[in-house]
C-alpha cells in the first residue's frame, strides 16, 4: 500500500559515504527518533519479558475482570489472567509476527524482484506475472488455506501473510534494479565477466536496500495490524498465547463492562505500530536525497 512512497535512490551512489551521513541525518529527524525510541522500548520489553512479567501470561490465577490494583497492575482479563503479564509477553508475539512475515516477504519478494530486474526478458515477465497472481489472491483465503494445509498455528498464518506481502517487496526491489542494470558500468562489469553474485552485491544491493528498508519498517507495523484482524476472525493467534490482537478482539464483549481489557492492548498496538511507522518515515526522509527538509 505504501510501497510507492519509497523513492528511488539515484543510480551509482556508493555505499560508504551514505552511511556516515545516514546516522547524522537520522538524528536530526525528530519523528524518526521518537519512532526509534518506541520500537526500542518494545524490543526491550520483548527481550526482558520473563523478568518483567509478574505472572505466567497463560495462567488463570485470579478473579476475572479485576480492575488495576497493587497486585495486578493492569487488572485481570475475562479468564482471570494477569493483563500486564500478557501485555509484556504480547510484545514477543508482535515482534515475532512482524519479523516472520517480513522475513518471508523479503526472501520471497525481494529476491524475486531483484532477479527479475537483473535478468529481464521473459524471466522478468514470468516472475512479475506470478507476483500478480499472488497479489490477486485475497490474503484471507490464502491464510485460511495455508493454515488448513499446514495446521492452525500463528507461524503458519504469518507465513501466509508473508507470501501476501511478497509482491509488494518484489515490485520495490525490481524498480531500482532495472534502473541500475542498464547503466554502462554494470554492463561493463558483466562484459568483463564479473560473477553475478559480485555484481548483485556491489551494485544492485546498495540501491535496493534503502527502499526495501523503508518498506520493511512499514510492513512490520502492518503485520501486527493484520495479526489483529486475523485474530478478530479467529484465524490468528492460538489461545492461550497472549497476543495484543487477540486480546483486543476478545475485549469486544467487555467494552462497557471492563474497558481496561481493551485499553491496554489497544495502546500497546498503537505505540508499536506508531513507532515503526515513524521510524519508517524518518528513514525514508533520510535515504531519499531528493527530499529536502525545510
Amino acid at each position: 500500500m505504501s510501497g510507492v512512497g519509497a523513492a528511488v535512490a539515484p543510480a551509482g551512489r556508493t555505499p560508504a559515504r551514505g552511511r556516515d551521513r545516514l546516522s547524522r541525518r537520522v538524528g536530526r529527524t525528530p519523528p524518526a527518533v521518537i519512532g526509534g525510541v518506541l520500537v526500542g522500548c518494545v524490543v526491550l520489553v520483548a527481550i526482558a519479558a520473563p523478568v518483567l512479567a509478574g505472572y505466567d501470561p497463560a495462567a488463570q490465577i485470579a478473579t476475572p475482570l479485576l480492575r488495576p490494583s497493587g497486585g495486578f497492575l493492569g487488572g485481570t482479563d475475562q479468564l482471570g489472567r494477569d493483563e500486564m503479564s500478557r501485555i509484556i509477553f504480547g510484545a514477543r508475539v508482535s515482534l515475532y509476527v512482524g519479523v516472520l512475515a517480513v522475513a518471508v516477504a523479503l526472501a520471497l519478494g525481494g529476491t524475486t524482484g531483484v532477479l527479475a530486474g537483473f535478468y529481464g526478458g521473459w524471466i522478468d515477465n514470468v516472475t512479475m506475472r506470478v507476483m500478480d497472481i499472488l497479489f490477486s489472491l485475497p490474503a484471507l483465503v490464502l491464510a485460511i488455506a495455508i493454515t488448513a494445509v499446514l495446521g492452525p498455528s500463528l507461524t503458519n498464518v504469518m507465513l501466509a501473510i508473508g507470501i501476501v506481502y511478497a509482491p509488494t517487496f518484489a515490485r520495490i526491489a525490481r524498480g531500482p534494479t532495472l534502473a541500475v542494470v542498464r547503466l554502462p558500468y554494470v554492463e561493463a562489469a558483466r562484459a568483463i565477466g564479473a560473477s553475478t553474485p559480485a555484481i548483485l552485491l556491489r551494485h544492485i544491493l546498495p540501491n535496493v536496500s534503502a527502499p526495501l528498508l523503508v518498506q520493511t519498517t512499514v510492513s512490520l507495523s502492518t503485520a501486527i495490524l493484520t495479526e489483529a484482524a486475523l485474530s478478530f476472525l479467529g484465524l490468528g493467534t492460538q489461545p492461550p498465547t497472549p497476543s495484543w490482537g487477540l486480546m483486543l478482539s476478545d475485549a469486544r464483549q467487555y467494552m462497557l463492562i471492563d474497558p481496561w481489557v481493551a485499553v491496554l492492548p489497544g495502546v500497546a498496538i498503537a505505540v508499536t505500530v506508531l513507532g515503526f511507522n515513524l521510524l519508517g518515515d524518518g528513514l525514508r526522509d533520510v535515504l531519499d536525497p531528493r527530499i529536502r527538509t525545510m
Partner: protein
Amino acid sequence: MRYLIRRALWTIAALLGVSVVIFLLVRLLPGTIVDILAGGEGQLSPVQQAAVRHQFGLDRPLPVQYLFWLGSMLRGDLGWSFRSGQPVAPLLISRLPITIELAVLSIVGVSLVGIPLGILASVSRSTRVKTAVQIIGLLGLSVPNFWIAILLIITASYLFHWLPALIYVPPWAGPWVNLQQMFLPVLSLALGLVAVVVRMTRSSMLEVLGQEYVTVAQAKGVPAWGVLLRHALRNALIPIVTVLGLQMGYLLGGVVITEQIFGLPGLGWTLLNGVYQRDYPVVQGTVMFFAATFVVVNLAVDLTYTSLDPRIRYE
C-alpha cells in the same frame, strides 16, 4: 502495439494462473460442502453424501471439473452457489455497488482530509506542526480497523442513541438514508487510510517544491497560494493519485471486517463466507473477479505511465 499484444497475452496467462491456483487452493481446504451440510455430527449416510457430491459435480475428476468451470466462465457463467443456489455472476454484481460505494466514498473522504494535511506538513516551517500532522495521521493507522469500527458504533449508539436504518438502501433509491448508512463505515476506513495519503502528499510536495520551476515562479512574484496550487500541487498529484489508486484496489478487494461489523453485504464478506461454507463456485468466482479487476487496472496504470512520463517506454 506489439507491446500491447504481448502484455495482453501475459495478462491472460496470469489470469489462467490465478484460476488454476484458486481452483486447487479451495479444494485444499479441509472439509467440503458435504461436511458443512452435515454440520459436524456426520449424519449424512454414505448414500446421501454421494448424492450431494454428485449434485455439485464434485464426483468428477479434477481436470474435468476445472475445464468445465473454465469453459462456463469464458461464456460469462460463473456457476451456482452451493449454499444458496443462486447464480454467482449476478450475485457478485449485486454485491458490487456496496463495495464500490464504500471504496469511492472512503477515497473521497481520505483525500479531503489527507491532501490538505499533507500540504500543510510540507510547507510548514514549524517542526512541531509537521510532527503533529504526522502523528495525527499515523494514529488512525496504528489501531486495528475493527477496533475503530466498534468504537464508532458504541459511541454512536451509546452517546447519541443513533444508528442508521439497517437494511441497505442504494444511493439512487434513498440518498439521505444511504449516506447515513455509509457514514460510520466510511469514517472507520478513512481514519485508517488517511496517514498514507498524508505521507505521500507531503513527500511528493516536498520534492516538487524543491524544483527549479517553483523557485522561478516565486521569483516572478506569483503569490504563494498560486505557486502551491497551480505549480506544485498539480505536479505532485501523480504519486498521490497512484497511492489513492492502490488504496482503491485494497478497498475494492473487499474490506471484510468493516462489512461484517456494519452488516453490509459486500464482496469481501461474500468471499469469506464462501470460504467458510466451502462454496467453491462463490470463492472461485469472486477471486477471479478480483483478479481480473486487478490485472486490468494494472495494465491501465502501466499504460498511463507511458503517457505521463515520456521517458518510460516499453519495447
